[in-house]
């Protein structure tokens, strides 16, 4: 197992390197944003770009990019966005909001989704199941920003239960109840889709497992229905559900551009797209590495998690 994990980690870094190299070369092959500013000295921008090394051969730039990271953990400064600010500092500043809002949303959504899924599976083909399934279809089909507007209008504006936008740190600390309350509309908006997805998966998996022969055997052995479900059915169903939950955790780091804009959350939701649109190389590369690393690392975690959920699954075993 250890050997397998080490091998996967080494492979992960190799993959990361290949992806970084490809992305660096590809973004550098794109022409720089045109400089047209009326009454301004265009040469100044060109000279700045020259000074920043943008006119050096791409491979030289790539080498210098790596050198800065390895020797000083310096990811460069923004040129087209957050001009002059350290890319790393901007990311570190903005990431907690995104992670926190999404983390809360998943922490609330997971038990809800599981409970509803289990309930629907147990009440399969009865009105409760139909009602839940119908709601699931609605919540999966409608994009989260639609809920966001509805939630904001109804709960924040009309009823006044929550603030319209996220509190600033001047008014509330990041982990305070006041901040949580101001995050709640965004948490709800993000959570509806996750709850619906989990409910659907859990119901489907559990429904299948519940009809298995071993469940009949478990009941015949004298286990109560609850014991049979919790000890056998749920455990088997989780082999499929858990990776989905981990996948949701990965998604949280990506943030949600529209939700963040609606609730004025200063997260990283729009950074990646903006960095591509305005062609800010340093932001683009830092974010590429960040997302790629998270994606690759979570792939390993998901694979390893199978072994914990179901001991029959062995990683890296040749037997």
């Amino acid at each position, binding site marked *: 197992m250890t050997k397998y994990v080490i091998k996967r980690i080494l492979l992960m870094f190799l993959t990361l390197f290949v992806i970084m190299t490809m992305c660096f070369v590809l973004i550098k*092959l794109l022409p720089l944003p*045109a400089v*047209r500013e*009326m*009454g*301004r*000295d*265009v*040469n*100044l*921008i*060109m*000279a*700045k770009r*020259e*000074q*920043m*090394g943008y*006119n*050096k*051969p791409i491979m*030289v730039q790539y080498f*210098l990019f790596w*050198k*800065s990271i390895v*020797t*000083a953990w*310096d990811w*460069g*400064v*923004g040129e087209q*966005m*957050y*001009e*002059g*600010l*350290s890319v790393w500092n*901007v990311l570190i*500043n*903005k990431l907690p909001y995104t992670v926190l809002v999404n983390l809360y949303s998943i922490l609330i959504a997971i038990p809800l989704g599981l409970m509803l899924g289990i309930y629907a599976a147990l009440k399969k083909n009865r009105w409760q199941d139909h009602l839940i399934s119908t709601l699931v279809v609605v919540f999966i089909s409608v994009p989260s920003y639609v809920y966001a*507007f509805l939630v*904001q*209008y109804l709960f*924040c*504006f009309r009823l*006044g239960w929550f603030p*319209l*936008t*996220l509190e*600033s*740190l*001047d008014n509330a600390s990041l982990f305070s109840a006041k901040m949580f309350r101001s995050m709640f509309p965004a948490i709800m908006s993000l959570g509806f889709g996750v709850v619906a997805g989990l409910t659907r998966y859990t119901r489907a998996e559990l429904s299948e497992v519940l009809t298995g022969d071993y469940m009949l055997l478990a009941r015949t052995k004298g286990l109560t229905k609850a014991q049979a479900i919790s000890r056998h059915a749920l455990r088997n169903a989780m082999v499929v559900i858990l990776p989905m939950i981990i996948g949701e955790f990965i998604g949280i780091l990506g943030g949600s551009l529209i939700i963040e*804009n*609606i*609730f*004025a959350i*200063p997260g990283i939701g729009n950074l990646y797209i*903006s960095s591509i*649109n*305005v062609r800010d190389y340093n932001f683009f590369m830092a974010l590429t590495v960040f997302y790629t690393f998270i994606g690759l690392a979570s792939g390993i975690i998901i694979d390893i998690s199978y072994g914990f959920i179901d001991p029959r699954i062995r990683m890296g075993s040749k037997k």
Partner: protein
Amino acid sequence: MRKVVSIILALTMALSCVSALAETAAFTPADSYDVGERAFNAGEVVLTPAGEGGGTINTVRYAGEEGKDYTDEKVYTLVDTLGGTNGMDWNPHTWETNDDNTVLSMMTIGFYGFYLNENKDGYAILPEMAADYPVDVTSEYVGQFGVAEGETAKAWRIALNPDACWENGEKITADDYIYSMQQQLNPKMLNRRADSYYAGDMVLVNAKNYLYAGKTTYDLITEAPADLLAAGEKVYLDMDFWGCVGALDAEGNAAEKYISINDDTMYRDTSVKDETADEAWVSAKYLYDNYLAAGAPYEAYASQYLYTASIAEGATWDEVGLKKIDDYTIDLILERPVQEATFYMPYNLSGTWLVYKPLYEACKTFYDADGKAVDNEEAAATVSTDYCTTVEKSVSYGPYKISYFEMDKQIKFDRNENWYGYHDGKHLGMYQTDIYQINIIKEQATELMAFLAGEIDSVGLTAADMATYASSQYIKYTPQSYTTKVSFNTDYEKLLSRGTGSQILVVDEFRKAFALALDRAEFAASYTAAGAAGLGLLNYMYVYNPFTGETYRDSDYAKAGLVELYGLTWGEGGDYATLDEAYDAMTGYDMDAAKELMKVAYDKAVAAQIYDGTSPIEIEFRVYSNDTTYVQMFTYFDTQLQKACEGSGFEGKVSLKMTVDPDYYETNYSGGADVIFTTWGGSAMAPFGVMNQCYTDAYDGSGNQMEYGFNTEEIALTIVVNGEEITASLHDWSDWVGSTDVPALDEKLGVMGDYSYETRCGFLAAIEKCFLSYYTTTPMYYRQSASLISQKINYATDRYDNIVGFGGMEFTTYNYDDAAWAEYVASGELKY
């Protein structure tokens, strides 16, 4: 039976193929299109000389709201919102956006302040960081800094305000100004705003040379490369054109970014795998000759990849035109004299370049040429700074100081108690606001709800909001200096190469018919929040006389230009009794005339063999996005075009196709678009430079002109000046009116500054009319935004002024303090 069916099918297919080939072969559009003689007579301009010194400025400001206590103990907070796109930076040397400037304007103040005047109908100019108005000391510099005997208005002495200090109480002296300018022009920093004192109207002697200090600078060509070469200029190719920056030659030397087009050093293009293949080795000369030279396949891109080079002479700091005279006096020595200096000197000095030395130095980071951090500036090749990006890294010297900053979320300002203005007795009746708070909210719907809930004090409205709030007593309209127009590509070869039939855009009558089919009033009312129907390139914002505030659009010359363009007459025997009546009646919309012109256009297109008369024509309309407003606008254009085509040979054959292209401006610059929406405008206080900066600077994509293919150098514009006909190209006239030297016109007319403002308007109106008469662009509406302001506050005036707006925050007064406002909002009575 099967055989029979097979044979019939085969014959049918063969016949179809033959018929298709026959159809294709039947019509080949002409290789070129002759637009005919391009000569335009714009009418008469009467020359009157300029007055001495330009005029006098108003120095008496509005005294504030009578009976209002600006110093009570209550707390008044003004809450605004900003979009905060991709970070903010309020460093005076590097700021970029309006949002940045909003922050900067709170914590700094200029040498001179522009305030609402006593009658609330214009502005007054008062010294702030300066102790008095500038004094012309040119005579003291004769023989130095390029100042010649007899010259005036080139060197100016500014007495500094001795009460000015930083927020920590330290005095601001001449040394601070000298240090700050040295940093602004620091060659290792290459600050984005370094050009403020050499690229604008106020050019400090040697500022640019000090910044570039012997560096080579490259500028995109503005003339045909062959002409440049013939004139002995060196032309350089940007090797990015072929992706060959850094490619190696046979000796292992890397290709520079810019290489002379006469340089035949071959570089290995690694994108060609086979080293022996054609084009595995390329040189700048080869690339130019084969791809960018006249007649080569990518000739159109020449203006984007070819450069001329120049080397900055280099100057020491002592040679820069900024001098300390004593602790509270500085001199500015300029390369060009300032005209109408009583207004333009304070106008150009409505800001400062000050930075606080101890903090500025602490915020610097040093790098060598490879980007490796080094310890000090001497060893560094580049210096970067994060000055003015957080509370700790900001120092104020204006009325407010930053008390809180959270990236992309919120900025708060408190009063800067060390600001001289709170103690000098000269600022009574100003600044009732105690706390100024900016919330970053990107979503307009959220902003509107926050406003309606009493959380913010103003909100911009969209077209959709107008149905609800257009009649609100709290609505304010803010005009902008931009005109939105439709621009047409008229480059025949480019259009022909599309194969969609859009080459009919080269027919003048087609474009004019399209223009006449557009009802600007209906368009502006239906698809913009507050835009006003507009027929001119310059809107009502442009002030031609800064001393009186008179606007170009309201001048007789400007009105007459548009009225004549749209065929209306006035006076005896005319359609209208007076010019004003004719101007007011003008709409630019005449569907009947459009239909008639469309028939002419059809006949002309067929006769010129650029159109076969029967094929469908698809004109591509590029827009920024496919949001609802753009779709509605596009649908309007398509509908009106179809209507205009009714009854002509084009009926049922012409259609518009909407293409979403976020880079549509760039696409247009390379001639890649048929039609696009364009919005341009310049400084509202400098109308005479707008034409050559925005509309006539280069037709081939190398300038700002959006009408690709419309060569203003080929338009012969005649203006009758005091009875004498003077003809020059539209491009030259435009340059001359914009105060750029045009020897032929300088010889006959001198310079624009020699003439009265009215005369200058006459010339400007002539070139505007000439440009519009070719219908390569159709103005649609003048930009104007609508917003609601909170019941909590009052602006000083309802009349918007170009310079001081509605009076600004200085004169904003309050109906409620914070506590009373919270109570009022909680009562649920807040309605707009």
